[in-house]
């Protein structure tokens, strides 16, 4: 039994139809840091696409969201993750009207000390849209800035996403 991992950098983020795309930010005094700036007061969304799901066995999909605060050093951020999967040559669903499976959310707290320290939020997606090896997969990531549990001021900068699942 092994864990399959796929990863996406912020620069691979695409807009989600009908939703607000966060600003793209490039910063860094030594290394270059590219990220998507998710607002504190509303919901913004990005989408990543995996044209071929490798080695899916069973179980939930773990979505790890790498993020840092732009200006805050305390508070919580509510992240949401949703999947949409299509099996080529099998599913008859129109790809352009395919819907997201129900979103799963997780709240991650700023750990303090340094404003722009890197955090990882873990969302355990249990609504898998019948994911299977070889699927075309879309992943939506949102910051739920208007959620009452999202208390962190300022932007949350998402630098990348890692997806994990079991191959057995």
């Amino acid at each position, binding site marked *: 039994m092994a864990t399959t991992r796929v990863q996406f950098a912020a620069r691979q983020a695409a807009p989600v139809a009908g939703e607000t795309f966060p600003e793209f930010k490039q910063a860094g005094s030594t290394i270059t840091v590219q990220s998507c700036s998710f607002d*504190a*007061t509303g919901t913004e969304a990005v989408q990543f696409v995996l044209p071929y799901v490798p080695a899916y066995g069973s179980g939930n999909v773990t979505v790890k969201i790498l993020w840092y*605060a732009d*200006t*805050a*050093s305390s508070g919580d951020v509510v992240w949401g993750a949703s999947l949409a999967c299509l099996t080529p040559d099998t599913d008859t669903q129109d790809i352009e009207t395919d819907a997201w499976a129900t979103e799963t959310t997780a709240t991650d707290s700023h750990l303090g000390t340094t404003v722009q320290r890197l955090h990882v939020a873990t969302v355990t997606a249990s609504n898998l849209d019948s994911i299977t090896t070889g699927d075309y997969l879309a992943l939506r990531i949102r910051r739920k800035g208007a959620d009452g549990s999202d208390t962190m*001021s*300022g*932007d949350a900068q998402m630098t990348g996403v890692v997806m994990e699942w079991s191959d057995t």
Partner: protein
Amino acid sequence: MTVLSDPDRATVWRILMERAECPGTVVKADFRAAVNATDDWIEANSAAFNSALPQPYRGAASTGQKAALLAAIALKKYGRDI
């Protein structure tokens, strides 16, 4: 005058956070309370501010011009660009 509408207060709150004007240790709800309190204070003290302005400026200036004067003095006084 009346206090700002809730959407207008939310706009001020959002813009100031985007400009990094909220201290890092302060969470969103507490910063929003500060925005609301500032609006309330201005509403409560607007008549006193107007009375403090000398003539003929007080009678000639619009409310917008007086607001710009107040904002400019406050910003300059505490080291911000006008």
